[in-house]
């Protein structure tokens, strides 16, 4: 059983928003109401005099900071706006007070005067030659969080321009029989984690301690060390349970601002965002993708080009990686002899883009899988057959220099088709496939400590965000130590006691941290055997671990007995420690990706012709995960991801009108609800034990989000005669498409 579940159903689980620190004050952020403006004046005097107010942090407090701007690819983001704002929602002040209510009330007394600047409301505007610039200077940083450097162009708004190319597309297109080109749009999407962003910061003699709902605590630690000029050893990050993240709490978000407020206040400060504020903090990058495929006379694909333009919002965050991955994820599990995909990400005066479950994946797969069906329809061929003729096989290269494909896409497609065949004809089904290369850095460490009473503590920076990582680590450590899972305790991630880990995301924790704790537990086993060998003067070959202790030549010895014999008192511990690096497993982890995260999705839908409302009738999702380390949790990852994909497909849309967010509020932002979910839902996990992770596991958790939108669009096209190319596929859009189709049908 997952150790977190009992705490969660009984109300005992402590989330970051539940954490309280002695002497803590509360911060409320004042946010820009302008998409792009100079701050020409700010009056905080009323707020400063209000009930309970401790202080007001503004852009004038730069002297508190060693480094005033931070970022992951560019140092482009001020800790707090100084003289300029670049999006509606950008923090311009933090009012700190003795209670949340006082902070909220006083925050309304801050008066800011803006002088509006011309804006880039959309990516198209940002790309125009005469577009106003959001950032005049580019200060790129390399290998900081993701490997590599963003290829932006200073003097433009383009902060990433990535090209993926193979073969000779131009000659392929010249020799083509037919060329098909379509464009697809994908909106900004809110993460909508149930727990909004929250952090607590405290400066004291030991340095800076931050409690945060962070997915990447070590990235937060690194950025805070720079911003405040502290050694990493003096910046401590603690992460309790996190109420959902989906990438929205990855990299670094509100922590530098909260820490700055604490430094000014001279006491601990907690900032808990509202759900609305979280929607103004980050979002998935919106995209427009034009995709073109050349076909020969036999209907074989000769080449593909893709032009991806992503709206990255006001600050780059991890947008450069999102754009790069979207190019990779546009390829699909297909033989494409010639390929040219360009992916650009641009600054706009909107909420900053950021990582979101399968970065760049849903945007790319929406385009590429819709396009595959459109070509099949033009060729008059069944989409399953058209795909089959081009499918890669296990061992084929998806992208040169990356790991060969480690799954069988045909088997996945068949499983999805099979699961949705009952009661439906083949023609009515919508299908989508995807392969993605998770951006995993195989760097992680863990400590496994065995105590005299037989209890085991595991220290790792993997964050329990709902995926069940604590259950997985517990299982692996228990198995390696031959102990009952109940004696294994997974501690809250704390940089003061756990080794470095890259972060919780990109489907990596079960695999990478799983390997790290397995190795650390193995190290503990070696040390226990050595200790026992010394203490009892027997060969280590005669000693093995057993629940509660050891077996030595058929005799049971408890851990307490062991330490008693070894130390003279029945106290002590053994600490196993290990790191995973790209050189681990004889270098098998050096090649990216560590596994291909793949998806096959199939569905049937019905449409209300009067209203355009779509109902998902059946859905099947297939994932090749190597080995399920916790079946129920693994299914849950697939299902939850697919339902987020359903939100992308049908409902969700962070709309900006001239930079003003129009739907960034829970009441106006429709996420999937229970009544949207069909009873006929199948989740297929393919387990061949062929992953590099513990017990043959591959990573998982993101693939399920990829196929839903194109599968629904393809079902709509096949069964209802309408092709939608813009998400979300709202009833109004579908009704409009149905209406314009009617004259031809009759």
């Amino acid at each position: 059983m997952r150790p977190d579940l009992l705490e969660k159903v009984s109300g005992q689980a402590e989330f970051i928003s539940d954490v309280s620190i002695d002497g803590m004050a509360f911060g409320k952020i004042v946010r820009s109401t302008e998409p792009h403006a100079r701050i020409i004046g700010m009056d905080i005097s009323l707020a400063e005099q209000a009930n309970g107010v401790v202080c007001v942090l503004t852009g004038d407090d730069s002297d508190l900071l060693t480094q005033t701007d931070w970022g992951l690819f560019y140092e482009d983001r001020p800790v707090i706006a100084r003289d300029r704002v670049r999006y509606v929602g950008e923090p311009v002040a933090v009012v700190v007070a003795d209670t949340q209510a006082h902070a909220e009330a006083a925050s309304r007394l801050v008066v800011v005067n803006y002088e509006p600047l011309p804006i880039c409301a959309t990516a198209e505007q940002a790309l125009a030659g005469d577009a106003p610039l959001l950032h005049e200077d580019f200060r790129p940083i390399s290998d900081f969080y993701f490997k590599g450097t963003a290829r932006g162009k200073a003097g433009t708004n383009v902060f990433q321009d990535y090209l993926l190319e193979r073969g000779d597309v131009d000659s392929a297109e010249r020799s083509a029989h037919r060329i098909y080109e379509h464009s697809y749009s994908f909106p900004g999407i809110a993460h909508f984690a149930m727990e909004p962003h929250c952090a607590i910061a405290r400066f004291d003699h030991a340095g800076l301690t931050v409690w945060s709902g962070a997915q990447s605590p070590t990235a937060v630690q690194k950025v805070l060390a720079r911003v405040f000029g502290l050694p990493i050893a003096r910046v401590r990050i603690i992460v309790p349970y996190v109420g959902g993240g989906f990438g929205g709490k990855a990299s670094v978000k509100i922590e530098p601002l909260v820490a700055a407020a604490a430094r000014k206040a001279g006491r601990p400060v907690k900032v808990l965002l509202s759900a609305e504020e979280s929607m103004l903090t980050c979002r998935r990058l919106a995209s427009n993708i034009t995709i073109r495929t050349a076909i020969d006379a036999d209907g074989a694909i000769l080449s593909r080009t893709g032009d991806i333009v992503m709206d990255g919002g006001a600050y780059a965050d991890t947008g450069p990686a999102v754009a790069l991955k979207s190019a990779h994820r546009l390829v699909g599990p297909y033989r494409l002899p010639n390929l040219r995909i360009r992916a650009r990400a641009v600054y706009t005066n909107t909420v900053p883009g950021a990582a979101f479950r399968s970065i760049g994946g849903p945007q790319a797969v929406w385009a590429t899988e819709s396009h595959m069906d459109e070509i099949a329809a033009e060729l008059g061929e069944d989409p399953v057959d058209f795909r089959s003729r081009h499918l890669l096989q296990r061992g084929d290269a998806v992208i040169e220099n990356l790991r060969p494909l480690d799954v069988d896409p045909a088997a996945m497609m068949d499983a999805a088709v099979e699961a949705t065949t009952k009661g439906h004809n083949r023609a009515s089904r919508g299908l989508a496939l995807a392969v993605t290369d998770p951006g995993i850095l195989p760097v992680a460490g863990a400590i496994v400590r065995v105590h005299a009473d037989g209890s085991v503590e595991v220290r790792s920076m993997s964050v329990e965000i709902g995926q069940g990582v604590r259950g997985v680590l517990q299982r692996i450590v228990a198995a390696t130590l031959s102990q009952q899972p109940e004696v294994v305790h997974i501690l809250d991630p704390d940089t003061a006691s756990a080794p470095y880990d890259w972060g919780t995301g990109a489907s990596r924790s079960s695999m990478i941290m799983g390997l790290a704790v397995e190795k650390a537990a193995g190290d503990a086993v070696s040390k226990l055997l050595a200790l026992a060998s010394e203490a009892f003067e027997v060969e280590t070959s005669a000693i093995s671990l057993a629940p509660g202790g050891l077996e030595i030549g058929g005799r049971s010895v408890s851990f307490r007995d062991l330490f008693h014999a070894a130390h003279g008192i029945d106290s002590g511990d053994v600490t196993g420690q290990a790191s995973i690096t790209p050189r681990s497993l004889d270098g098998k982890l050096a090649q990216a990706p560590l596994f291909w995260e793949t998806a096959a999705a199939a569905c049937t839908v019905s449409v209300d012709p009067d209203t355009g409302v779509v109902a998902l009738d059946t859905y099947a999702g297939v994932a090749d995960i190597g080995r399920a380390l916790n079946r129920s949790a693994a299914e849950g990852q697939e299902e939850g991801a697919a339902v987020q994909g359903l939100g992308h497909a049908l409902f969700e849309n962070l709309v900006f009108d001239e930079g003003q967010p129009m739907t960034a509020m829970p009441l106006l932002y429709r996420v999937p609800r229970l009544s949207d979910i069909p009873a006929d839902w199948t989740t297929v996990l393919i387990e061949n034990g062929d992953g590099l992770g513990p017990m043959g596991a591959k990573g998982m958790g993101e693939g399920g989000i990829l196929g839903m939108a194109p599968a629904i669009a393809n079902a709509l096209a096949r069964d209802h005669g309408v092709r939608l190319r813009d998400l979300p596929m709202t009833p109004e859009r579908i009704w409009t498409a149905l209406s314009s189709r009617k004259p031809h049908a009759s």
Partner: protein
Amino acid sequence: MRPDPFTYHQPQSLAEASSLVAELGDGATFYAGGTELLLLIKMQLAKYDHLVNLKKIDGLRKIAVEHDRLVVGALATHNDIALNPTVSKHCPSLSRLCGEIANIRVRVAGTIGGNLCFAEPRADPPVLLAALDAEMRLVSAHASRVVPASEFFLGPFETAREPDEILTTIEIPLGTGTASVERMKQGNYSLATAAISRRERHQTWIGFGGGPPKRLGGTGALLDRDYGRTSEEALFAAVAEDIVDLEIPSDIEAGESYRRHLIAVAVKRALASLHETEATGVH
């Protein structure tokens, strides 16, 4: 979000409550379920120094049949109405509608009176109550009057109620006949609502999110003439004609032409559900 401080009054009688609001003036308002008012106060969209709670006044939550009228106390919650056997017997369309409003928590806390007095233009109950010829009883410290639902709603968030008047009951004449209501809801609010009652004459009312419920005279006349034989084309044409001059909202939730279409669909479905009710004899 937290409300700014206010004083909370808990009067025991209608007269006391009404007098309190009259005395305290603009800074005071009545408070019932709070599902809408508290939200506005939390969001700083409304500011009151005094809330006068009506929930401690006896008798305002009663539901009963009196003199051929279904009398619903204004403090009855949506959930009370949805589960009340008297309502489901005499006015099943109201039962069903109240069982579908928002979510279970809002239905448990929110009152029918609060819903009507708030006059959210996207709310559904006003549309049905107009079609049912319901009457609103308004009581102040000094007077009592009855306003037909059709005259109660003046515009978005605006009713005929005076600040010190308390809506005490909603009274629905029973007589013979049937009624139905259908709504077109995709997000958290209805895009269109239609209610049809079939008594001596047909009444068709719609809600469209931009103003008070609107009676569709031409559509009603069409039903008087052709009930049971109306073609979809004729019905859609009649509705379109009835709403041609109506200012229909157009926003990110839905554009005008789609909304106009949904109004017609709502009417069509309300009519279909009326037919079904009559065919099955389940009223």
